[in-house]
């Protein structure tokens, strides 16, 4: 299978969106395009499993390499392993759902969908690239769309949030850039991920380069204390924008932390592991407690994202194979869950025109579908068995517990304790919104979900439940990749 299709399809979709004449045409084109991307992602999963079934044990499959700038030894090198395949699946699902929930946008529809598809293009490109230069290019490509999506179609103090988000993410990028150039010179003029992973870099260099790369990607994935763009950015963005930011963009950071920082600089990872664990433990607890104080549904989800993403950073700091698998699972699970959460919040806001928990009540009576989905997402967030959250968090804790140092034990226990706090805020928010009597008489008139919203919710629910009930397939995808990383850390 040709993975370059993941660049070609979004490009074609974007082109057709630009050529469309009416708003309705734009929507249909975007929908068809994103449906095709989901089909393509499923085909990739299938083809990948077939290849692995044929005992093709190469680290990366479907590799392609073209020279880009020969004098600097930069090649356009793409390929996928199980981790990238699962990330591509996540992206395709979230983008499709995002296109569906934005169906009613009337303000500059063409531009909106164009930018949304450009974001998807950046994410696909990021996950398939095996060259640091190309990877960085695709990471950065999403800056303009993010800025404009929040600033033009957002709500609240949108200009401030857009500025803050872009500047903080660019700060992360600047660190990545310097780290990347460092690797380039240390590795003998090499940007290629596969070639760099074969080079032994002296620990003293890793001490300098690892924090640059890890913190750089960490900004994208809300590493404490560089998480402050998350609440503002997520709450000001339009629904599809928040879904993308929390569902995919934060995962770009996590993937980069693991694939670039930890994988290429294992000694650096060992040196800084304790600091990562400390910071992520703080993020988990801090995020959870701050969420308790929030009254705005979007802020609740944004802060709880900081806490949930903390789990995957914590697991990365633990450096065992199970923990790294758990980190990846948590990324996938959180991506689906948080995208759905934002979608549901968007649906509620479109109807009630408020996101304040205190102003809502009894919505179950008027919109049973939406509130049911809200319940399921809430339960997933607090880790109910049968849903993806439980599988991911369980794996993280099991992996973390394998380290028997007292420091790791305390971190694991405190992270596990945060689930109780999660239960408190999730149950309170969901119950206030859905149960009780209807607070405002005008809420009586509200309609339940439309076909597009139902479709969007069902797609993401499908992902959440299929991981929750049968996690084996995801584990099969992620574990080999995690094993390679953990072996490299162990020096095998």
């Amino acid at each position, binding site marked *: 299978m040709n993975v370059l299709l993941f660049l070609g399809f979004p490009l074609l979709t974007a082109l057709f969106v630009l050529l469309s004449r009416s708003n309705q045409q734009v929507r249909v084109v975007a929908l068809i395009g994103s449906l095709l991307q989901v089909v393509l992602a499923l085909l990739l999963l299938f083809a990948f499993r077939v290849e692995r079934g044929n005992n093709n044990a190469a680290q990366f499959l479907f590799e392609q390499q073209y*020279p*880009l*700038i*020969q*004098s*600097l030894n*930069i090649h356009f090198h793409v390929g996928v392993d199980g981790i990238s395949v699962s990330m591509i699946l996540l992206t395709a699902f979230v983008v499709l759902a995002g296109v569906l929930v934005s169906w009613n946008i009337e303000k500059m529809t063409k531009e909106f969908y164009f930018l949304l598809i450009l974001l998807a293009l950046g994410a696909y490109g990021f996950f398939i690239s095996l060259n640091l*230069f190309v990877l960085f*290019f695709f990471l*950065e*490509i999403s*800056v*303009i769309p993010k*800025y*404009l999506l929040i*600033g*033009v179609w957002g709500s609240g103090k*949108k*200009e401030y949030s*857009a*500025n803050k988000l*872009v*500047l903080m993410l*660019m*700060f992360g990028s*600047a*660190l990545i*850039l*310097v780290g990347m*150039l*460092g690797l*380039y*010179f240390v590795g003998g003029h090499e940007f290629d991920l596969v070639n760099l992973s074969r080079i032994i870099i002296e620990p003293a260099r890793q001490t*300098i380069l690892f924090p640059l790369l890890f913190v750089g990607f960490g900004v994208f994935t809300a590493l404490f204390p560089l998480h402050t763009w998350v609440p503002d950015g997520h709450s000001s963005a339009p629904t599809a924008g928040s879904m993308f930011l929390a569902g995919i963009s934060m995962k770009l950071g996590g993937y980069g932390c693991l694939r670039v920082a930890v994988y290429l600089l294992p000694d650096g990872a060992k040196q800084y592991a304790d600091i990562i664990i400390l910071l992520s433990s703080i993020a988990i607890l801090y995020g959870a407690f701050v969420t308790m104080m929030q009254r705005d549904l979007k802020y609740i989800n944004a802060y709880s994202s900081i806490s949930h993403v903390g789990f995957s950073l914590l697991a990365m700091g633990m450096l065992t194979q199970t923990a790294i698998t758990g980190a990846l699972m948590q990324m996938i699970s959180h991506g689906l869950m948080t995208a759905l959460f934002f979608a549901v919040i968007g649906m509620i806001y479109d109807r009630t025109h408020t996101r304040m928990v205190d102003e809502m009540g009894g919505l179950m009576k008027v919109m049973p579908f939406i509130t049911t989905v809200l319940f399921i997402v809430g339960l997933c967030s607090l880790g109910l068995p049968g849903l993806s959250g439980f599988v991911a968090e369980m794996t993280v804790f099991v992996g973390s517990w394998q380290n028997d140092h007292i420091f790791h034990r305390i971190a694991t226990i405190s992270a596990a304790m945060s689930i109780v706090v999660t239960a408190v805020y999730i149950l309170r928010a969901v119950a206030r919104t859905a149960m009780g009597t209807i607070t405002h008489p005008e809420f009586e008139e509200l309609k339940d979900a439309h076909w597009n919203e139902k479709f969007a919710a069902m797609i993401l629910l499908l992902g959440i439940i299929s991981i929750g009930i049968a996690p084996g397939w995801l584990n099969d995808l992620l574990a080999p990749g995690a094993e390679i990383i953990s072996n490299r850390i162990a020096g095998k």
Partner: protein
Amino acid sequence: MNDLLLLMKSELVITIIIFGLLFIKVGKGMRNEQLLPIIQLVLLVNLIIGFFFNIEGSLFGDMFHTSPLIAFEKNILNLGVYLIALLNTDWLKKTNHLAEFFLLILAALLGMFCLISSGNLLIFYLSLELATIPVAALANFDLDKKSSSEGAMKMILSSAFSSGILLFGISLIYGITGSISFAALPQLADGSPLFTLAFIFLFTAFAFKLSIVPFHFWTADVYEGSPIAVTSFLSVVSKASVAFILLTVLYKVFLPIEHIWYYLIIIVASLTMLIGNLFAMRQQNMKRFLAFSSIAQVGFILVGVSNGTEMGVSSVVYFILIYLFSNLAAFGVVAVISENKQKENIDDYKGLYSTNPFLSWILAIALFSLAGIPPTAGFFGKLFLLTAGGSKANFGFIIFAALNMIISLYYYLRVTRAIFMDKNEFPIEKIKTNASVQMAMVICAVGIVLVGLMGWVFDYIQTLH
């Protein structure tokens, strides 16, 4: 004889055009509507000729030197002049002295060509003057504007000052080594303190021309006072030519004291980036804003210059090509709006997207490219400059440059925000743009997008050495 024709091809073509213009001026004269398309066509032909018959060689006892790379650099300048002639069609049609405008511009261009080709400090000095004095006259081209005369005056004074310093530096160098030839100087350079001092005087002249901090004070006033066509010529073509010769001088003539100029470049590059950025943040007038942002861009160019090898040359030439497209596109939009609506403030641009989507996108792409955000070419340009600057493992410096990119992003975003997000009850009305202006803007936009994505452009520049 044949050699002379081929080696001095670019200079001869420009000279012929200048004579042609003179004849037209002396004759019965032509109306602007007739003359302008002819000039634009001639400049296009000049640009196309520039791609062919580029060979390496020296003339007049090594006083004049050319090579494929130098020819490519000259053609970048040709492209800049051609685009300026297209982008400012509206203004040029109205001006009373069209022929004189191009006479002066081409005279300055001729000076720049000789400057880039110079192989001797004497030619270097003469052509630098030839490249400066017509531009000072150009800065005064808006005869009825007081600020235009003020800008021209500032420029003349600062140029005179810098050429005085330059001459002093040259005389010191001649006194120490007994030679002014670029080829002979590296062997004769003794690295004594006096030689270093002479070098610093010489570098100061460069600093004036490139508006490197702390010699940048003339820039903003001159840029604001001059007509936009001249401002864009100053900020792109004039700077590009001086940057090219700076590379030759540093990498060939002063190679023996690289350990000294390396630190000098690092210090002034850091200062230039930081101060250019900090001042650009607070500007309200678009021309001043672009003036300070171009100071910061020069700081980034110096990051690449600090490299000291072929990689430095390639990255700087590549960046200047991209910078030319980006900055000219930005100035082009500012020129159209200023010429039609007399508005130059950032606040006036609020809500521009609702009325002028085409101009808005061009300006946005140009600014994103200046900020170095992909998929625009500015990203590649900045990245290669930093790669060149980082080759000596000076990570502190590279981190500082990367952080400056974020500061610059902040103020470029200010303009984008005004265009796309801020509400305005009375946005600038729909402007009907001229076809040739539109064409030039599309050329710039295509250049901004494609030069980066097509990696072979950089490879091509590398092969020219």
